[in-house]
């Protein structure tokens, strides 16, 4: 596989803040890549450096083997960037907006209109762009970044502030975009989003990449306990503890909060069969670790603004 994006030892400083502190990435062509991190971790700055909007203080970036800084016209036709949904001209309709961005690439009006259809906004063509709903505006924003058929697509928190339906709708679009063979790089702080969409993620904090890998691999590596819970009152916690002990299942934590009886364990199999023997499976729920657990383990649990 060919590398679409290579970053090596990238650093960027703003005054006293080291926004990006030695980031190295290797993103394959066709990969769906996520950059995860809490607010202020340096995700956006990293993305902007990859796009060629900002010049790194140190380090090397190559897109298809070429540096995006200074502004490289050939690369600009091969990358597409989705901006905040508010980055539209005042007073223009949806169709005028997409045609304007198409003109920047010297494309035709029909191609622009086809892109509008692609993101499902044809019916909103004559609606002013600033009157679109959050999800529609985000789709228009993505359409503006996709209109020239780029090979790499950069998205900065594309689903921030969207309602659940709009989020899922956008996920479908992004998945399609990736399945057409485009490399997609997105930043997000929604872990479920990264887990569902991304082939690989890099978890960032304080300008550094803490960990990189496929979401499932990172979760497995965490080796966190699986939580098995059933309705409370089906079996007494003490009875269950005794049964688990006699069956030789160690290292389990049994808790009952009057609503659910929860067993945290590394070996959910025997736990489930014991509960089944007791006829205590009503309301059964098995929850494994998520990317969120990986994230919290890596970045700590304390609150930050």
């Amino acid at each position, binding site marked *: 596989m060919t590398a679409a994006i290579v970053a090596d030892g990238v650093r960027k400083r703003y005054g006293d803040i080291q926004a990006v502190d030695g980031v190295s990435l290797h993103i394959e062509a066709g990969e769906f890549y996520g950059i995860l991190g809490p607010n202020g971790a340096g995700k956006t700055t990293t993305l902007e450096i990859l796009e060629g909007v900002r010049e790194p203080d140190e380090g090397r970036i190559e897109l298809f083997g070429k540096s995006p800084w200074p502004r490289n016209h050939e690369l600009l*036709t091969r990358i597409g960037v989705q901006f905040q949904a508010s*980055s539209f001209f005042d007073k223009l309709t949806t169709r005028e907006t997409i045609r304007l961005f198409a003109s920047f690439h010297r494309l035709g009006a029909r191609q622009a209109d086809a892109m509008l*259809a692609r993101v499902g906004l044809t019916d909103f063509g004559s609606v002013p762009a600033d009157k679109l709903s959050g999800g529609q505006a985000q789709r228009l924003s993505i359409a503006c970044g996709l209109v020239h058929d780029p090979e790499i697509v950069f998205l900065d928190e594309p689903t921030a502030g969207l309602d659940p339906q709009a989020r899922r709708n956008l996920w479908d679009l992004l998945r399609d975009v990736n399945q057409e063979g485009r490399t997609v790089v997105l930043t997000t702080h929604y872990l479920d989003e990264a887990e569902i969409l991304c082939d690989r993620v890099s978890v960032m904090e304080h300008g550094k990449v803490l960990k990189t890998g496929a979401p499932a691999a990172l979760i497995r590596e965490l080796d966190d306990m699986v939580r098995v819970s059933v309705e409370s009152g089906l079996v007494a916690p003490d009875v269950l503890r005794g049964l688990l002990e006699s069956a030789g299942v160690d290292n389990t934590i049994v808790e009952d909060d009057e609503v659910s009886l929860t067993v945290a364990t590394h070996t959910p199999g025997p736990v489930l069969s014991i509960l089944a023997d007791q006829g205590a499976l009503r309301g059964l729920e098995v929850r494994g670790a998520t990317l969120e657990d990986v994230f919290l383990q890596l970045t700590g649990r304390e609150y930050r603004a």
Partner: protein
Amino acid sequence: MSIEDTTAPTTRTGPSDRKEPAGKGGPGGRRTAGDERLSPIRELSRAMILSVVRDKGTIFFLLIFPILFLLLFGSLFKSDGTSHIKVAQVGEVQVLDSLTKDQREQLTKAATITKVSSESTALEKVRKGDYDALVEQEGGTVVLRYSAADGVKGASARAALNAMLEQANLAATGKPATYTLKASQVEDRSVKPIQYLTPGLMGWAIASSAVFSTALTLVTLRRKKILQRMRLSPIRAWEVVAARIAMSMVIALTQTALFLLVATLPYFGLTLTGAWWLVVPLVMCGTLSLMSLGLLIGSVTKTEESAGGLAQLLVLPMSFLSGSFFSLDSAPDWVQWVSYLMPLRYLVTGSEAVLSRGGGLMEALPTMGGMLAFTAVVTALTLRFFKWNDT
């Protein structure tokens, strides 16, 4: 491979083999044959002009508001230009009463004589300014009393009456006049208010729109990250600049057309002189020089509010010091000197020269050159402050 792009470089990489290229085919944006390419300059200037045309508030501020000023000032100062005087006649005044019909008609061109019975009422009315002068006869003396408030009108009343008395005196001798005066008009070199109000207010209107809208466009495009977005597309910087200039030119020339249209109405009576069309290149150069100031303001400010404030701080004093609201001819020396530093002064005086003072290329060319030089200097200075994004 599902994506084909005729302009894409040959080094394009294929989709990774672990992903199916999805039977949907390429993106909807695939280039279609016969789909005419959109010109970035045309689309961008269209977008910018639409953003003005579709905003009623902006239209009012740019086009209607300055014209209202012209209507207001034009009407206010209109009476100043005529030397028609109103005279109250108390009792019998032989010279006036014995005028022939022809003579009376001649007189009414310059003055309206109204008979008033009481001297004290007439005097009071002169004091108030209802009449410019009062005339009465005491024996062989014709007495003219006029208010000192308006010396010009008093003097014209005096001159008119004097001429009449001399004619009457001469007639009384029964001899023909030895010398007669044949008056013929030469070109009027005095400036009527509409002659300086039109270029002045027009310059102010153009300055406001060029400085404000250039500064605000820059700040808004930067704050909304549209500048950054354009920078990430293959559009060239000069194309963005050209589109923005085109927008300001359309506004400035529309303002010019509106001003000339209103000022040449018979009511205001501006007569355009020979090479008035030179106002078009003058306005274009002037717009460029004022845009460069807007660019500077937009580059050193971060929010629309501060850009608007700074633009106001610049445009209003500049307009006063450039003769937008009054003729510089009568301004104190220091104002005249300061005015030489203002690009607006050159737009105003240049336009005045070609519009109403018979000026031609010789007046217009140096002015245009000066404004272009100003543009170059300010733009060079601005490049030091120019930023693509806020942080």
